[in-house]
């Protein structure tokens, strides 16, 4: 730790209540760019309160002001290079709404193809590389193995190569239709910039078919490694990783999960429909709370109200992302995914599922739907149509767009003058929706796992797992960058001296 940061910490510590001991999980090396966890211990060595703090803000909403709204799909994709396609698509849909133009049906199919391709490869990234190692390798495995190398060690090099090659091939689809895979350029109000050539179709169909096989294979891997292990299932359903909150997700007209479009549906902790509304009405349903100890804001359901960091029907806190999407819908839109969905709820004891770690499984269920949708869309001969854009003719004023990003519901709102130049921008980003629940998860996991002053690597990894399951992207959440979170865990005594350091 550098001297300045040490000094700041020491000062803060001296001012803290002297009867308390503090454990800091702090990305020292990334002090200003990433999240940190502060754990306050009481005299008995138990956790008093744990805070997840997001220490930076970038202000995309402000620096986009004055710029042409049609630049937003490309500007906002730079919020996150891991999920640029989600921001690109939410922005494009906000432009449709801004100009009052319905997307050309062919353009819509191309958008959906790209979007489902993105959902599939992004979920695969998390399952195999970012979050999955906790399960595939195991939460108690030594930290040097809890990474992609450990995953390859467990599932074999051939599988590792298959993951790499499959992701590359799926991403080539986005590259082809979107111009670029990292920061696509396809989105325009009323359609897309480029069509799909009929000559490309056989190749695209093959990738989609292999993508579906790959999603099925991933479900099998999850079965073999996680579900056949009682200890893992017990961990998933344990109280330390459970919160009874509201859940939000996009649904189609049949209340099935949809990543690209639909109404926002919210279900209560006891599984009843709390609300269902088009995104244009989101300000009637969502408010944001501010705390002085974090740059991130805390959205909540306006009609239920902010009731502090509490759970249950009377708390407006809600969750988004895979588990929440499955809870908020009545089923999946495709057959293989529906089968996996039914098994998921059967094993986990019915709807809604409140176990944060179930996000990993829900993510695999969603991979199936994304792959099946790709196959469907490519079997639709209309997708190679020569026309794919409707030129907008109306005067712009206000536009709101929504998609389900891999990490949850993502809302862009733009207000412009009559030339389409922005004067007001609001972004409610996936991980921000989850911010209150993630904060509670970290607090609860710390309280449940750290007892009588006993803190070890495995326990701290489990505290981390409580938020890693959300696949959080704090880069997105504060519209800051970057999106990943290397953590350093520092344990200190009362004087603020370091007892030991654990890093991942």
């Amino acid at each position: 730790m550098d001297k300045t940061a040490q000094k700041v910490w020491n000062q803060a510590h001296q001012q803290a209540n002297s009867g308390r001991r503090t454990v800091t999980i702090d990305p020292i090396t990334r002090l200003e760019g990433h999240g940190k966890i502060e754990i306050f211990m009481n005299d008995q060595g138990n956790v008093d309160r744990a805070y997840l703090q997001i220490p930076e803000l970038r202000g995309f909403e402000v620096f986009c002001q004055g710029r042409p709204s049609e630049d937003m799909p490309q500007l906002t994709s730079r919020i996150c290079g891991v999920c640029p396609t989600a921001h690109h698509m939410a922005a494009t849909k906000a432009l449709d709404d801004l100009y009052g133009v319905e997307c050309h049906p062919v353009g819509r199919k191309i958008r959906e193809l790209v979007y489902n391709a993105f959902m599939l490869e992004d979920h695969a990234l998390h399952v195999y590389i970012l979050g999955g190692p906790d399960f595939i390798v195991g939460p108690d495995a030594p930290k040097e193995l809890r990474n992609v190398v450990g995953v390859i060690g467990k599932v074999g090099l051939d599988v590792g190569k298959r993951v790499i090659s499959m992701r590359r091939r799926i991403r080539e689809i986005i590259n082809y239709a979107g111009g670029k895979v990292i920061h696509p350029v396809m989105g325009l109000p009323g359609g897309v910039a480029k069509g799909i050539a009929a000559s490309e179709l056989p190749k695209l169909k093959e990738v989609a078919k292999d993508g579906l096989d790959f999603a099925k294979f991933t479900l099998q891997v999850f079965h073999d490694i996680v579900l056949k292990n009682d200890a893992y299932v017990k961990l998933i359903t344990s109280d330390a990783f459970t919160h009874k909150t509201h859940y939000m997700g996009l649904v189609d007209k049949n209340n099935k999960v949809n990543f690209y479009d639909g109404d926002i549906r919210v279900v209560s902790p006891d599984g009843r429909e709390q609300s269902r509304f088009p995104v244009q009405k989101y300000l009637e349903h969502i408010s944001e709370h501010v705390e002085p100890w974090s740059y991130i804001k805390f959205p909540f359901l306006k009609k239920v109200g902010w009731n502090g960091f509490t759970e249950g029907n009377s708390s407006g806190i809600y969750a988004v992302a895979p588990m929440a999407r499955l809870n908020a819908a009545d089923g999946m839109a495709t057959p293989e995914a529906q089968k996996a969905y039914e098994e998921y709820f059967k094993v986990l004891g019915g709807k809604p599922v409140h176990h944060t770690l179930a996000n990993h499984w829900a993510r695999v269920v969603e991979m199936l739907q994304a792959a099946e949708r790709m196959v469907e869309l490519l079997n639709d001969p209309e997708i190679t149509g020569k026309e794919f854009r409707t030129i907008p003719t109306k005067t712009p004023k206000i536009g709101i767009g929504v998609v389900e990003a891999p990490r949850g519901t993502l809302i862009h709102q733009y207000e412009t003058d009559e030339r389409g130049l922005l004067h007001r921008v609001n972004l409610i980003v996936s991980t921000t929706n989850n911010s209150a629940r993630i904060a509670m998860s970290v607090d609860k996991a710390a309280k449940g796992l750290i007892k009588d002053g006993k803190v070890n690597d495995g326990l701290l990894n489990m505290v981390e797992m409580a938020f890693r399951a959300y696949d959080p992207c704090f880069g997105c959440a504060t519209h800051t960058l970057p999106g990943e979170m290397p953590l350093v865990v520092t344990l200190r005594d009362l004087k603020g001296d370091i007892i030991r350091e654990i890093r991942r």
Partner: protein
Amino acid sequence: MPDKPKVAFYWCASCGGCEEAVVDLAEDILKVVEAVDIVLWPVAMDFKKADVEARPDKSIVAAFINGAIRTSEQEEWARMLRRKCQVVVSFGACANSGGIPALANQFKTETILKYVYEDCPGLDNPGKVRPLVKSEDEGRTLTLPEMHGMVRALDQVIDVDYYLPGCPPTPKLIMAAVQALLSGKLPPKGTVLSPDIALCEECKRKDSKPVDLALTEFKRPHQVQIDPEKCLLAQGIVCMGPATRGGCEALCPGGNMACTGCFGPTSRVKDQGAKFVSSVFSNIVPKEEKEIDAVLDGIPDPIGTFYRYGLSKCLLRRKLN
């Protein structure tokens, strides 16, 4: 067996897209891992700052640093890596010239904070609470770092040997740079590791670009059907191609959209926006000021158009109020 050359990857203020670009080496990444010993890569591997600090100076062959410099912490990391590495490669548009985050240099920090926590739609914040550098919650003291206002390029903080351009650089260019490093066949210091030609030279639409563009108006891309074969400038759409370095093989025009300039200028150009203005605006047909203004109305955000990725390095620097 001699030790494999040591390589470090690091990120500052970036979106993670440059990291994804490295992951997009796909199968080739296995070759890289075989050939080098990666001693630092925060996104994918466990790491220790102390470990890197403990290494002898210049013991790491190369560092690839992406992202702009916004915080003191990022600055410290950059300086430390400079000491430990023989070669520093500035990786991507943000490190090279500020990138999209540098567009914030047009606004004051206070403007950003006020909007986000007081004026944004949907806030429930009657007490106008803002994040504080130091706050108390039930007697527990919590601290946050202060927000910094200015976004800088990497070479405004440390000495840089090479530049990989792009938002993000393409896997092909990344692989070529790694191979050049490994073979020891290094170009002169300061080289941008991408062809020193204008993007137009590698654009498939090149043959349809007239010598005199004869511009009578600029059209915004959402207003017109874009011809997928014809030069975008010839269609009246602002395309940064003439003022931008090639190397991406004209990806965005391939996606039927204009180049926005993410590769920065060629070696012969100091200021990318000024280059564009001087080379393209001379093709505007009207000669009367009022008529010229009417043509320029088609470019409502000149800074965001000409300096989208380069505000840290452009001659304009920043807005003071």
